[in-house]
Protein backbone atom coordinates (compact mmCIF):
# COMPACT_ATOMS: atom_id res chain seq x y z
CA UNK A 1 0.00 0.00 0.00
CA UNK A 2 1.46 3.37 -0.94
CA UNK A 3 2.32 5.87 1.80
CA UNK A 4 -0.25 8.34 0.45
CA UNK A 5 -3.09 5.81 0.72
CA UNK A 6 -1.85 4.64 4.14
CA UNK A 7 -1.73 8.21 5.47
CA UNK A 8 -5.16 9.00 4.03
CA UNK A 9 -6.58 5.87 5.66
CA UNK A 10 -4.95 6.81 8.97
CA UNK A 11 -6.66 10.22 8.92
CA UNK A 12 -10.05 8.75 7.95
CA UNK A 13 -9.90 6.16 10.76
CA UNK A 14 -8.75 8.77 13.26
CA UNK A 15 -11.62 11.00 12.18
CA UNK A 16 -14.16 8.19 12.70
CA UNK A 17 -12.55 7.35 16.06
CA UNK A 18 -12.88 10.98 17.19
CA UNK A 19 -16.49 11.10 15.94
CA UNK A 20 -17.35 8.09 18.06
CA UNK A 21 -15.48 9.61 21.02
CA UNK A 22 -17.62 12.73 20.56
CA UNK A 23 -20.81 10.65 20.55
CA UNK A 24 -19.63 8.86 23.69
CA UNK A 25 -19.23 12.14 25.61
CA UNK A 26 -22.87 11.66 26.63
CA UNK A 27 -22.76 7.99 27.58
CA UNK A 28 -26.50 7.52 28.25
CA UNK A 29 -27.59 9.22 25.02
CA UNK A 30 -25.01 7.21 23.09
CA UNK A 31 -26.23 3.85 24.42
CA UNK A 32 -29.91 4.83 24.12
CA UNK A 33 -29.43 5.86 20.49
CA UNK A 34 -28.02 2.44 19.67
CA UNK A 35 -30.59 0.51 21.70
CA UNK A 36 -33.61 2.37 20.37
CA UNK A 37 -32.42 2.00 16.79
CA UNK A 38 -32.26 -1.77 17.29
CA UNK A 39 -35.75 -1.77 18.83
CA UNK A 40 -37.08 0.48 16.07
CA UNK A 41 -35.78 -1.88 13.39
CA UNK A 42 -37.02 -4.94 15.28
CA UNK A 43 -40.57 -3.60 15.28
CA UNK A 44 -40.72 -4.20 11.51
CA UNK A 45 -40.16 -7.94 12.02
CA UNK A 46 -43.64 -8.10 13.57
CA UNK A 47 -45.11 -6.53 10.43
CA UNK A 48 -43.45 -9.19 8.25
CA UNK A 49 -44.44 -12.00 10.62
CA UNK A 50 -48.11 -10.96 10.33
CA UNK A 51 -47.90 -10.67 6.52
CA UNK A 52 -46.12 -14.00 6.11
CA UNK A 53 -48.65 -15.59 8.47
CA UNK A 54 -51.33 -14.72 5.92
CA UNK A 55 -49.27 -15.82 2.90
CA UNK A 56 -46.18 -18.10 3.18
CA UNK A 57 -44.32 -16.38 0.32
CA UNK A 58 -44.21 -12.74 -0.71
CA UNK A 59 -42.65 -11.85 -4.08
CA UNK A 60 -41.15 -15.37 -4.18
CA UNK A 61 -39.39 -15.03 -0.82
CA UNK A 62 -39.96 -16.72 2.55
CA UNK A 63 -39.41 -15.12 5.96
CA UNK A 64 -35.72 -16.21 6.13
CA UNK A 65 -34.95 -14.59 2.80
CA UNK A 66 -36.90 -11.43 3.53
CA UNK A 67 -34.88 -11.11 6.73
CA UNK A 68 -31.76 -11.15 4.52
CA UNK A 69 -33.04 -8.01 2.76
CA UNK A 70 -33.73 -6.36 6.09
CA UNK A 71 -30.45 -7.41 7.65
CA UNK A 72 -28.30 -6.34 4.71
CA UNK A 73 -30.16 -3.05 4.28
CA UNK A 74 -29.77 -2.22 7.99
CA UNK A 75 -26.07 -3.14 8.14
CA UNK A 76 -25.19 -1.39 4.86
CA UNK A 77 -26.99 1.77 5.89
CA UNK A 78 -25.44 1.43 9.36
CA UNK A 79 -21.88 1.14 8.02
CA UNK A 80 -22.46 4.06 5.64
CA UNK A 81 -23.58 6.22 8.57
CA UNK A 82 -20.82 5.08 10.92
CA UNK A 83 -18.02 5.86 8.48
CA UNK A 84 -19.47 8.32 5.96
CA UNK A 85 -22.40 10.07 7.69
CA UNK A 86 -21.47 13.50 6.31
CA UNK A 87 -22.11 12.25 2.76
CA UNK A 88 -25.81 12.50 3.62
CA UNK A 89 -25.60 16.17 4.56
CA UNK A 90 -23.28 17.17 1.73
CA UNK A 91 -25.76 19.66 0.15
CA UNK A 92 -25.92 21.64 3.38
CA UNK A 93 -22.12 21.84 3.58
CA UNK A 94 -21.91 22.97 -0.04
CA UNK A 95 -24.70 25.55 0.12
CA UNK A 96 -23.56 26.99 3.46
CA UNK A 97 -19.92 27.10 2.36
CA UNK A 98 -18.60 24.78 5.06
CA UNK A 99 -15.93 22.98 3.06
CA UNK A 100 -13.17 25.55 3.69
CA UNK A 101 -11.38 23.74 6.51
CA UNK A 102 -11.20 20.55 4.41
CA UNK A 103 -9.85 22.41 1.40
CA UNK A 104 -6.79 23.73 3.23
CA UNK A 105 -5.73 20.24 4.34
CA UNK A 106 -3.36 18.11 2.25
CA UNK A 107 -5.79 15.22 2.05
CA UNK A 108 -8.65 14.10 -0.19
CA UNK A 109 -11.40 16.68 0.33
CA UNK A 110 -14.14 14.17 -0.39
CA UNK A 111 -12.89 11.52 2.05
CA UNK A 112 -12.15 14.10 4.74
CA UNK A 113 -15.64 15.58 4.40
CA UNK A 114 -17.64 12.36 4.39
CA UNK A 115 -15.75 10.82 7.32
CA UNK A 116 -16.10 13.96 9.43
CA UNK A 117 -19.29 12.79 11.18
CA UNK A 118 -20.74 9.58 12.58
CA UNK A 119 -24.37 8.87 13.42
CA UNK A 120 -24.21 6.90 16.67
CA UNK A 121 -27.63 5.32 16.03
CA UNK A 122 -26.09 3.73 12.91
CA UNK A 123 -24.11 1.42 15.21
CA UNK A 124 -27.55 0.05 16.22
CA UNK A 125 -28.44 -0.44 12.54
CA UNK A 126 -25.23 -2.34 11.87
CA UNK A 127 -25.57 -4.57 14.94
CA UNK A 128 -29.22 -5.23 14.16
CA UNK A 129 -28.36 -6.46 10.65
CA UNK A 130 -25.69 -8.73 12.05
CA UNK A 131 -28.07 -10.12 14.68
CA UNK A 132 -30.73 -10.79 12.02
CA UNK A 133 -28.37 -12.77 9.81
CA UNK A 134 -27.17 -14.81 12.80
CA UNK A 135 -30.69 -15.46 14.09
CA UNK A 136 -32.52 -16.28 10.85
CA UNK A 137 -30.09 -17.68 8.28
CA UNK A 138 -26.64 -18.30 9.72
CA UNK A 139 -23.84 -20.10 7.89
CA UNK A 140 -20.15 -19.16 7.85
CA UNK A 141 -20.16 -18.61 4.07
CA UNK A 142 -23.29 -16.47 4.30
CA UNK A 143 -21.88 -14.42 7.16
CA UNK A 144 -18.69 -13.70 5.20
CA UNK A 145 -20.72 -12.77 2.12
CA UNK A 146 -22.97 -10.65 4.31
CA UNK A 147 -20.00 -8.70 5.68
CA UNK A 148 -18.59 -8.18 2.18
CA UNK A 149 -21.96 -7.01 0.83
CA UNK A 150 -22.55 -4.77 3.84
CA UNK A 151 -19.33 -3.00 2.83
CA UNK A 152 -20.24 -2.80 -0.89
CA UNK A 153 -23.78 -1.72 0.07
CA UNK A 154 -22.40 1.02 2.31
CA UNK A 155 -20.05 2.16 -0.48
CA UNK A 156 -22.86 2.19 -3.07
CA UNK A 157 -25.31 4.07 -0.81
CA UNK A 158 -22.60 6.59 0.14
CA UNK A 159 -21.48 7.06 -3.46
CA UNK A 160 -25.10 7.65 -4.50
CA UNK A 161 -25.52 10.20 -1.68
CA UNK A 162 -22.33 11.99 -2.84
CA UNK A 163 -23.53 11.91 -6.45
CA UNK A 164 -26.90 13.41 -5.52
CA UNK A 165 -25.37 15.83 -2.98
CA UNK A 166 -22.83 17.11 -5.50
CA UNK A 167 -25.68 18.39 -7.68
CA UNK A 168 -25.94 21.20 -5.10
CA UNK A 169 -22.77 22.69 -6.59
CA UNK A 170 -24.89 23.51 -9.65
CA UNK A 171 -28.46 23.80 -8.30
CA UNK A 172 -29.38 24.86 -4.76
CA UNK A 173 -32.77 23.22 -5.15
CA UNK A 174 -31.12 19.88 -5.94
CA UNK A 175 -30.90 19.37 -2.17
CA UNK A 176 -34.53 18.24 -1.91
CA UNK A 177 -34.40 16.12 -5.05
CA UNK A 178 -31.15 14.48 -3.94
CA UNK A 179 -32.34 13.68 -0.44
CA UNK A 180 -35.58 12.18 -1.85
CA UNK A 181 -33.54 9.95 -4.15
CA UNK A 182 -31.26 8.81 -1.32
CA UNK A 183 -34.20 8.21 1.03
CA UNK A 184 -36.01 6.18 -1.61
CA UNK A 185 -32.91 3.95 -1.92
CA UNK A 186 -33.06 3.26 1.80
CA UNK A 187 -36.85 2.78 1.87
CA UNK A 188 -36.99 0.39 -1.09
CA UNK A 189 -34.05 -1.65 0.19
CA UNK A 190 -36.14 -3.20 2.97
CA UNK A 191 -38.69 -4.71 0.56
CA UNK A 192 -38.00 -7.85 -1.52
CA UNK A 193 -37.52 -7.08 -5.23
CA UNK A 194 -40.03 -9.79 -6.21
CA UNK A 195 -42.97 -7.51 -5.35
CA UNK A 196 -41.90 -4.95 -7.97
CA UNK A 197 -42.24 -5.27 -11.73
CA UNK A 198 -42.35 -3.10 -14.87
CA UNK A 199 -41.33 0.52 -14.41
CA UNK A 200 -40.75 0.15 -10.67
CA UNK A 201 -38.29 -2.68 -11.23
CA UNK A 202 -36.50 -0.70 -13.93
CA UNK A 203 -36.26 2.25 -11.53
CA UNK A 204 -34.83 0.12 -8.71
CA UNK A 205 -32.18 -1.51 -10.89
CA UNK A 206 -31.29 1.30 -13.29
CA UNK A 207 -31.95 4.65 -11.61
CA UNK A 208 -31.60 4.30 -7.84
CA UNK A 209 -28.90 1.79 -6.94
CA UNK A 210 -30.92 -0.39 -4.56
CA UNK A 211 -30.72 -3.31 -7.00
CA UNK A 212 -26.92 -3.39 -6.82
CA UNK A 213 -26.64 -2.41 -3.16
CA UNK A 214 -29.14 -4.92 -1.74
CA UNK A 215 -31.15 -7.07 -4.20
CA UNK A 216 -28.32 -8.70 -6.19
CA UNK A 217 -26.21 -9.33 -3.07
CA UNK A 218 -29.20 -11.08 -1.45
CA UNK A 219 -29.56 -13.26 -4.58
CA UNK A 220 -25.87 -14.21 -4.24
CA UNK A 221 -26.33 -15.01 -0.55
CA UNK A 222 -29.33 -17.23 -1.35
CA UNK A 223 -27.65 -18.95 -4.31
CA UNK A 224 -23.97 -18.17 -4.88
CA UNK A 225 -23.12 -16.74 -8.30
CA UNK A 226 -19.60 -15.41 -8.94
CA UNK A 227 -20.66 -13.29 -11.94
CA UNK A 228 -23.27 -11.46 -9.89
CA UNK A 229 -20.75 -10.96 -7.08
CA UNK A 230 -18.23 -9.45 -9.50
CA UNK A 231 -20.96 -7.25 -10.98
CA UNK A 232 -21.73 -5.84 -7.54
CA UNK A 233 -18.04 -5.19 -6.82
CA UNK A 234 -17.55 -3.56 -10.22
CA UNK A 235 -20.64 -1.42 -9.78
CA UNK A 236 -19.45 -0.22 -6.34
CA UNK A 237 -16.11 0.85 -7.85
CA UNK A 238 -17.72 2.53 -10.87
CA UNK A 239 -20.33 4.42 -8.85
CA UNK A 240 -17.65 5.60 -6.40
CA UNK A 241 -15.51 6.85 -9.29
CA UNK A 242 -18.51 8.64 -10.82
CA UNK A 243 -19.36 10.24 -7.44
CA UNK A 244 -15.76 11.42 -6.91
CA UNK A 245 -15.62 12.77 -10.47
CA UNK A 246 -18.84 14.78 -10.06
CA UNK A 247 -17.82 16.05 -6.61
CA UNK A 248 -14.44 17.35 -7.81
CA UNK A 249 -16.01 18.89 -10.94
CA UNK A 250 -18.51 20.64 -8.70
CA UNK A 251 -15.82 21.76 -6.26
CA UNK A 252 -14.56 24.17 -8.93
CA UNK A 253 -17.87 26.02 -8.51
CA UNK A 254 -17.70 26.07 -4.70
CA UNK A 255 -18.15 29.60 -3.43
CA UNK A 256 -17.50 29.28 0.33
CA UNK A 257 -19.13 31.77 2.74
CA UNK A 258 -18.30 34.12 5.55
CA UNK A 259 -20.75 32.61 8.01
CA UNK A 260 -19.48 32.14 11.55
CA UNK A 261 -19.16 28.46 12.30
CA UNK A 262 -17.71 25.96 14.71
CA UNK A 263 -16.60 22.39 14.21
CA UNK A 264 -18.84 20.69 16.77
Amino acid sequence: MSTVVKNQLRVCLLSVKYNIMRAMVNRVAFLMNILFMILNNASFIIQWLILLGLKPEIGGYTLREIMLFWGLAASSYGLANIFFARAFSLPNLIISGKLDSFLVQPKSVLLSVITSATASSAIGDFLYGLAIICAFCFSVQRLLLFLLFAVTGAVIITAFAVLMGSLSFWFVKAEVFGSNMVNSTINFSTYPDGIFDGAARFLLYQVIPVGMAIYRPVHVMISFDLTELLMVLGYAVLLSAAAAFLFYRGLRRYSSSNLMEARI
Partner: protein
Amino acid sequence: MNAIEARDLSKTFRVKQKEKGMAGSLKAVFRPKLQEIRAVDQISFSVEEGEMLAFIGPNGAGKSTTIKMLTGILFPDEGQVEVLGIDPVKNRRKLAYEIGTVFGQKEQLWTHLTPYDNFRFFGAIYDIPNSDIETRIRELADTFDLGSFLNTPVRNLSLGQRIRCEITASLIHKPRVLFLDEPTIGLDPVVKESIRELIMRMNTELHTTVFLTSHDVGDIEKLCRRIIIVNGGRIVLDDSMEHLKSHYLHRKHKENAQPSEVTLESIITEIYKAQSLQHPEAPEPGMEV
Protein backbone atom coordinates in the same frame (compact mmCIF):
# COMPACT_ATOMS: atom_id res chain seq x y z
CA MET B 1 12.26 35.26 -3.59
CA ASN B 2 8.52 35.94 -3.68
CA ALA B 3 6.40 33.79 -1.39
CA ILE B 4 3.15 34.90 -3.01
CA GLU B 5 2.60 36.06 -6.57
CA ALA B 6 -0.86 37.01 -7.89
CA ARG B 7 -1.39 38.22 -11.43
CA ASP B 8 -4.69 39.68 -12.73
CA LEU B 9 -6.65 37.62 -10.25
CA SER B 10 -10.43 37.84 -10.68
CA LYS B 11 -13.47 36.14 -9.20
CA THR B 12 -17.12 36.74 -9.98
CA PHE B 13 -20.07 35.41 -8.01
CA ARG B 14 -23.64 35.17 -9.18
CA VAL B 15 -25.96 36.18 -6.39
CA LYS B 16 -29.71 35.67 -6.42
CA GLN B 17 -31.89 38.78 -6.22
CA LYS B 18 -35.45 38.70 -4.93
CA GLU B 19 -38.11 41.41 -4.84
CA LYS B 20 -39.77 42.03 -1.49
CA GLY B 21 -42.58 39.96 0.01
CA MET B 22 -44.42 36.81 -1.01
CA ALA B 23 -45.08 38.12 -4.53
CA GLY B 24 -41.34 38.61 -4.95
CA SER B 25 -40.68 35.06 -3.74
CA LEU B 26 -43.25 33.64 -6.18
CA LYS B 27 -41.78 35.65 -9.04
CA ALA B 28 -38.30 34.43 -8.13
CA VAL B 29 -39.47 30.80 -8.40
CA PHE B 30 -40.48 31.25 -12.04
CA ARG B 31 -38.13 33.99 -13.16
CA PRO B 32 -35.06 34.01 -10.93
CA LYS B 33 -32.94 37.14 -11.21
CA LEU B 34 -29.20 36.87 -10.82
CA GLN B 35 -26.73 39.63 -10.20
CA GLU B 36 -23.08 39.24 -11.03
CA ILE B 37 -20.76 40.45 -8.28
CA ARG B 38 -17.16 41.01 -9.26
CA ALA B 39 -15.68 40.20 -5.85
CA VAL B 40 -12.06 40.41 -7.03
CA ASP B 41 -11.17 42.36 -10.14
CA GLN B 42 -7.77 41.95 -11.80
CA ILE B 43 -5.71 42.05 -8.62
CA SER B 44 -1.91 41.77 -8.98
CA PHE B 45 0.63 41.84 -6.16
CA SER B 46 3.53 39.92 -4.71
CA VAL B 47 4.74 39.20 -1.19
CA GLU B 48 8.36 38.50 -0.37
CA GLU B 49 9.39 35.52 1.70
CA GLY B 50 9.51 36.47 5.41
CA GLU B 51 7.39 39.58 4.86
CA MET B 52 4.40 40.45 7.05
CA LEU B 53 1.69 42.01 4.91
CA ALA B 54 -1.59 43.58 5.96
CA PHE B 55 -4.25 42.99 3.32
CA ILE B 56 -7.14 45.14 4.42
CA GLY B 57 -10.30 46.78 3.16
CA PRO B 58 -13.87 47.52 4.17
CA ASN B 59 -16.46 44.72 4.39
CA GLY B 60 -17.21 43.22 0.99
CA ALA B 61 -13.98 44.60 -0.51
CA GLY B 62 -12.74 41.18 -1.68
CA LYS B 63 -10.19 40.36 1.07
CA SER B 64 -11.58 36.97 2.06
CA THR B 65 -12.20 35.97 -1.55
CA THR B 66 -8.56 36.78 -2.36
CA ILE B 67 -7.23 34.86 0.64
CA LYS B 68 -9.43 31.89 -0.32
CA MET B 69 -8.04 31.91 -3.86
CA LEU B 70 -4.48 32.04 -2.50
CA THR B 71 -5.10 29.04 -0.24
CA GLY B 72 -6.88 26.89 -2.85
CA ILE B 73 -10.36 27.15 -1.32
CA LEU B 74 -11.77 29.05 -4.30
CA PHE B 75 -10.92 28.68 -7.97
CA PRO B 76 -10.12 31.99 -9.66
CA ASP B 77 -12.12 32.83 -12.79
CA GLU B 78 -9.17 34.62 -14.34
CA GLY B 79 -5.53 35.24 -13.56
CA GLN B 80 -2.76 33.25 -11.95
CA VAL B 81 -1.65 32.59 -8.41
CA GLU B 82 1.54 31.06 -7.11
CA VAL B 83 2.30 30.53 -3.46
CA LEU B 84 5.90 29.37 -2.89
CA GLY B 85 5.98 28.59 -6.59
CA ILE B 86 2.95 26.26 -6.28
CA ASP B 87 -0.30 26.83 -8.16
CA PRO B 88 -3.17 26.33 -5.64
CA VAL B 89 -5.54 25.33 -8.45
CA LYS B 90 -3.34 22.55 -9.83
CA ASN B 91 -1.51 21.49 -6.67
CA ARG B 92 -3.82 22.19 -3.75
CA ARG B 93 -2.54 19.27 -1.66
CA LYS B 94 1.14 20.04 -2.22
CA LEU B 95 0.53 23.66 -1.23
CA ALA B 96 -1.41 22.65 1.90
CA TYR B 97 1.77 21.08 3.35
CA GLU B 98 3.53 24.46 3.05
CA ILE B 99 0.87 26.86 4.35
CA GLY B 100 -1.09 27.39 7.54
CA THR B 101 -4.47 29.10 7.80
CA VAL B 102 -6.34 30.67 10.67
CA PHE B 103 -9.84 31.96 10.03
CA GLY B 104 -10.90 33.83 13.17
CA GLN B 105 -14.56 33.29 12.38
CA LYS B 106 -14.26 29.62 11.54
CA GLU B 107 -13.18 27.02 14.00
CA GLN B 108 -11.00 24.19 12.73
CA LEU B 109 -10.53 22.41 16.04
CA TRP B 110 -12.80 19.62 17.28
CA THR B 111 -14.53 21.22 20.26
CA HIS B 112 -15.13 18.00 22.24
CA LEU B 113 -11.45 17.05 22.08
CA THR B 114 -8.57 18.48 24.06
CA PRO B 115 -5.97 20.67 22.29
CA TYR B 116 -3.55 17.73 22.67
CA ASP B 117 -5.87 15.32 20.78
CA ASN B 118 -6.55 18.02 18.19
CA PHE B 119 -2.82 18.52 17.60
CA ARG B 120 -2.39 14.74 17.21
CA PHE B 121 -5.16 14.78 14.60
CA PHE B 122 -3.56 17.68 12.73
CA GLY B 123 -0.24 15.83 12.96
CA ALA B 124 -1.86 12.87 11.18
CA ILE B 125 -3.32 15.19 8.54
CA TYR B 126 0.19 16.47 7.76
CA ASP B 127 1.72 12.95 7.85
CA ILE B 128 3.89 13.68 10.89
CA PRO B 129 5.04 10.39 12.48
CA ASN B 130 3.69 9.68 15.99
CA SER B 131 7.14 9.94 17.57
CA ASP B 132 7.78 13.38 16.04
CA ILE B 133 4.35 14.77 16.80
CA GLU B 134 4.88 14.34 20.58
CA THR B 135 8.07 16.40 20.40
CA ARG B 136 6.39 19.02 18.21
CA ILE B 137 3.39 19.36 20.55
CA ARG B 138 5.72 19.74 23.56
CA GLU B 139 7.75 22.34 21.66
CA LEU B 140 4.69 24.39 20.66
CA ALA B 141 3.02 24.04 24.07
CA ASP B 142 6.18 25.43 25.70
CA THR B 143 6.60 28.25 23.18
CA PHE B 144 2.99 29.39 23.32
CA ASP B 145 2.42 28.56 26.98
CA LEU B 146 -0.44 26.09 26.45
CA GLY B 147 0.61 23.72 29.24
CA SER B 148 -2.16 24.66 31.67
CA PHE B 149 -5.01 23.85 29.26
CA LEU B 150 -3.48 21.29 26.91
CA ASN B 151 -5.76 18.60 28.33
CA THR B 152 -8.96 20.64 28.67
CA PRO B 153 -11.65 20.09 26.00
CA VAL B 154 -11.64 22.97 23.50
CA ARG B 155 -15.30 23.77 24.23
CA ASN B 156 -14.29 24.67 27.82
CA LEU B 157 -11.51 27.06 26.78
CA SER B 158 -11.82 30.84 26.72
CA LEU B 159 -11.90 32.49 23.29
CA GLY B 160 -8.30 33.68 23.71
CA GLN B 161 -7.06 30.20 24.65
CA ARG B 162 -8.99 28.73 21.72
CA ILE B 163 -7.47 31.14 19.19
CA ARG B 164 -3.99 30.38 20.58
CA CYS B 165 -4.73 26.70 20.01
CA GLU B 166 -6.07 27.43 16.49
CA ILE B 167 -2.83 29.22 15.63
CA THR B 168 -0.76 26.43 17.21
CA ALA B 169 -2.69 23.81 15.19
CA SER B 170 -1.97 25.74 12.02
CA LEU B 171 1.76 25.71 12.86
CA ILE B 172 2.05 22.01 13.64
CA HIS B 173 3.59 21.25 10.22
CA LYS B 174 5.96 24.26 10.27
CA PRO B 175 4.30 26.18 7.41
CA ARG B 176 6.37 28.67 5.43
CA VAL B 177 3.41 30.98 4.80
CA LEU B 178 0.68 31.73 7.31
CA PHE B 179 -2.67 33.19 6.23
CA LEU B 180 -4.50 34.91 9.06
CA ASP B 181 -8.05 36.10 8.45
CA GLU B 182 -9.19 38.24 11.40
CA PRO B 183 -7.17 36.27 13.98
CA THR B 184 -7.95 38.64 16.87
CA ILE B 185 -11.67 39.09 16.27
CA GLY B 186 -13.61 39.29 19.54
CA LEU B 187 -10.54 39.10 21.80
CA ASP B 188 -9.76 41.37 24.73
CA PRO B 189 -6.73 43.73 24.48
CA VAL B 190 -4.44 41.55 26.62
CA VAL B 191 -5.11 38.40 24.62
CA LYS B 192 -4.82 40.38 21.37
CA GLU B 193 -1.39 41.50 22.46
CA SER B 194 -0.27 37.95 23.27
CA ILE B 195 -1.50 36.72 19.88
CA ARG B 196 0.42 39.52 18.17
CA GLU B 197 3.58 38.63 20.10
CA LEU B 198 3.10 35.03 19.06
CA ILE B 199 2.82 35.98 15.38
CA MET B 200 5.80 38.30 15.66
CA ARG B 201 7.94 35.58 17.25
CA MET B 202 7.00 33.13 14.50
CA ASN B 203 8.07 35.63 11.88
CA THR B 204 11.41 36.52 13.48
CA GLU B 205 12.37 33.02 14.67
CA LEU B 206 11.02 30.89 11.83
CA HIS B 207 11.04 33.51 9.05
CA THR B 208 7.39 32.67 8.37
CA THR B 209 5.68 34.85 5.77
CA VAL B 210 2.48 36.31 7.23
CA PHE B 211 -0.50 37.39 5.14
CA LEU B 212 -2.89 39.15 7.49
CA THR B 213 -6.38 40.49 7.02
CA SER B 214 -7.84 42.34 9.98
CA HIS B 215 -10.11 45.22 10.84
CA ASP B 216 -8.03 45.82 13.95
CA VAL B 217 -5.62 48.68 13.35
CA GLY B 218 -3.52 47.48 16.29
CA ASP B 219 -2.82 44.18 14.51
CA ILE B 220 -1.74 45.98 11.37
CA GLU B 221 0.33 48.63 13.08
CA LYS B 222 2.19 46.27 15.39
CA LEU B 223 2.83 43.47 12.95
CA CYS B 224 3.09 44.69 9.39
CA ARG B 225 5.57 46.82 7.54
CA ARG B 226 3.56 46.85 4.33
CA ILE B 227 -0.11 47.44 3.67
CA ILE B 228 -2.40 46.69 0.73
CA ILE B 229 -5.85 48.23 0.79
CA VAL B 230 -8.53 46.74 -1.45
CA ASN B 231 -11.95 48.04 -2.27
CA GLY B 232 -14.52 47.03 -4.85
CA GLY B 233 -12.30 44.04 -5.67
CA ARG B 234 -9.35 46.23 -6.69
CA ILE B 235 -6.15 47.33 -5.02
CA VAL B 236 -6.43 51.00 -4.10
CA LEU B 237 -3.18 51.30 -2.17
CA ASP B 238 0.01 49.26 -1.89
CA ASP B 239 2.60 51.00 0.24
CA SER B 240 5.01 50.60 3.12
CA MET B 241 3.57 51.55 6.49
CA GLU B 242 6.35 54.08 7.01
CA HIS B 243 5.78 55.84 3.70
CA LEU B 244 2.03 55.85 4.12
CA LYS B 245 2.28 57.54 7.51
CA SER B 246 4.86 60.12 6.46
CA HIS B 247 2.87 60.93 3.32
CA TYR B 248 -0.30 61.60 5.32
CA LEU B 249 1.61 63.43 8.01
CA HIS B 250 3.06 65.69 5.37
CA ARG B 251 -0.35 66.31 3.83
CA LYS B 252 -2.00 67.00 7.16
CA HIS B 253 0.83 69.35 8.05
CA LYS B 254 -0.12 71.40 5.02
CA GLU B 255 -3.71 71.44 6.30
CA ASN B 256 -2.39 72.65 9.71
CA ALA B 257 -3.53 69.48 11.54
CA GLN B 258 -1.76 68.31 14.70
CA PRO B 259 0.61 65.32 14.17
CA SER B 260 -1.18 63.48 17.00
CA GLU B 261 -4.36 63.55 14.92
CA VAL B 262 -2.66 61.53 12.17
CA THR B 263 -3.00 57.94 13.33
CA LEU B 264 -3.06 54.83 11.18
CA GLU B 265 -6.73 54.47 12.05
CA SER B 266 -7.53 57.97 10.81
CA ILE B 267 -5.54 57.37 7.60
CA ILE B 268 -7.33 54.08 6.90
CA THR B 269 -10.73 55.59 7.72
CA GLU B 270 -10.06 58.46 5.34
CA ILE B 271 -9.07 56.09 2.54
CA TYR B 272 -12.16 53.90 3.19
CA LYS B 273 -14.44 56.94 3.16
CA ALA B 274 -12.99 58.24 -0.08
CA GLN B 275 -13.32 54.81 -1.63
CA SER B 276 -16.84 54.11 -0.36
CA LEU B 277 -18.11 56.95 -2.58
CA GLN B 278 -16.78 55.04 -5.58
CA HIS B 279 -17.53 51.47 -4.42
CA PRO B 280 -20.53 50.95 -2.14
CA GLU B 281 -20.30 47.78 -0.02
CA ALA B 282 -20.82 44.65 -2.11
CA PRO B 283 -22.93 41.82 -0.74
CA GLU B 284 -20.99 38.82 0.53
CA PRO B 285 -20.71 36.08 -2.07
CA GLY B 286 -23.33 33.38 -1.79
CA MET B 287 -23.79 30.10 -3.53
CA GLU B 288 -23.57 30.17 -7.28
CA VAL B 289 -26.86 28.92 -8.66
